[in-house]
């Protein structure tokens, strides 16, 4: 399946990615599995996505938790806890 990924704030800076299109194996995918998949790209990916920092995720613009299922065509975003207002 194909998904679109976005990174924001501290994650975007550290990963040096703001967005990417990703093709994933056609099997059941969750936010946590996706994090683990991306963490294999290297140290900084592991630190940012599976480390001590709190990471929030959104699927198609809705905040979700680690167990949320990801489907073909989804827009998935990773970012730190929000600090607006």
């Amino acid at each position, binding site marked *: 399946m194909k998904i679109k990924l976005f990174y924001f704030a*501290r994650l975007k800076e550290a990963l040096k990615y703001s967005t990417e299109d990703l093709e994933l194996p056609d099997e059941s995918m969750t936010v946590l599995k996706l994090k683990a998949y991306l963490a294999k790209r290297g140290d900084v990916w592991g630190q940012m996505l599976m480390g001590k920092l709190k990471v929030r995720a959104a699927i198609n*613009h809705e*905040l979700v938790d680690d167990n949320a299922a990801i489907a073909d065509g989804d827009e998935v*975003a990773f970012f730190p806890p929000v*600090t*607006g*207002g």
Partner: protein
Amino acid sequence: MTVRVQTEDFDVGFEINQFRKARNDIGAIVSFVGLVRDLNDGDAVSQLTLEHYPGMTEKSLAAIISQAKARWNIIEALIIHRVGTLQPSDQIVLVLVSSAHRGDAFAVCEFMMDYLKTEAPFWKKEATPQGEHWVEAKSADDVARERWNMKK
């Protein structure tokens, strides 16, 4: 019910007058304006940059207004949130709420700010004499938000 994400500044008096022009049954208008402080967690702040997640931002702010409308009696609500680079004393965010009576307007304005602080995808980066850094989320904001789950 309006949501605007913009780099431009806003004028609270102008927005209040827009509410007033539309109808004559408003008894109360409450506004909240958030400003850039020159000191945050002990650091001198010379500049603040706001990043957001276009698309999700507007959706989450609209969802906050919907939740408020389902729970309280309000007439109109407006959220304006600025993005980009701001200086100390600059206006960051406006939440404006009108209702027939003041209790609802106060409750909704505070509710919307507490939700915005913990749900809307904005991130602040501060410039200080020690360099730039991302602002950390505050657990006090989570606590403020949780109050609304306990209150009737």
